[in-house]
């Protein structure tokens, strides 16, 4: 026999948990946010570069190493979609663009990929959020989104 008060609390808790799960599933289907994926390792990704596919599509081969990201400044025109291909030359580093919910790990021997669209101009900081040594706190880069052309 379950106490009446306990039944009430169980129902309240169950309702709230169901609300959380439903909210997450709803957001996932409605906004179709991209989830980072792993790609087969290829040495081509270890050369840092920015590739322009067309006017609104770019690829960034980002390489993390103690204690810097290459390229350190990425110029992108506003409204463009960017594919980040991330790897590391040494230890595990983090790759976090807080304003765009980008949260990846740079791991030696793997390629981590995600896609993001930059619809608003501004400077987006990339920080390392995985402790990687004495210079970890200074490890950062920038995505500079502006009008009208990219460098």
């Amino acid at each position: 026999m379950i106490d009446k008060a306990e039944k009430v609390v169980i129902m309240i808790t169950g309702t709230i948990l169901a609300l959380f799960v439903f909210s997450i599933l709803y957001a996932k289907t409605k906004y179709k946010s991209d989830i980072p994926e792993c790609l087969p390792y290829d040495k081509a990704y270890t050369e840092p570069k920015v590739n322009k596919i067309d006017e609104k599509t770019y690829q960034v081969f980002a390489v993390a190493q103690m204690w810097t990201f290459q390229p350190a400044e990425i110029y992108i025109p506003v409204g463009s979609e960017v594919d980040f291909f991330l790897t590391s030359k040494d230890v595990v580093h983090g790759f976090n663009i807080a304003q765009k919910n980008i949260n990846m790990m740079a791991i030696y021997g793997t390629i981590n990929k995600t896609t993001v669209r930059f619809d608003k101009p501004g400077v987006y900081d990339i920080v390392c959020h995985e402790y990687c040594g004495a210079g970890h706190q200074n490890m950062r880069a920038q995505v500079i989104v502006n009008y009208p052309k990219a460098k």
Partner: protein
Amino acid sequence: MDTLLSSEQRPEQIHTVSENGNERVEKFFPSGAIAFFIVLVILCLVIWFGIYFLMIERTK
């Protein structure tokens, strides 16, 4: 032993309080604990959905 019984079986939580030599009977109900629980749940919902909508905003 009383704690293992359901509320229907458990005797009412009746307390006798002595005041100035007179005894009176009080019934106990944990209204403060229940109010605290409700406020705690509301705070949890506010924090959770605050971060939820913030994350959604960042994906746009």
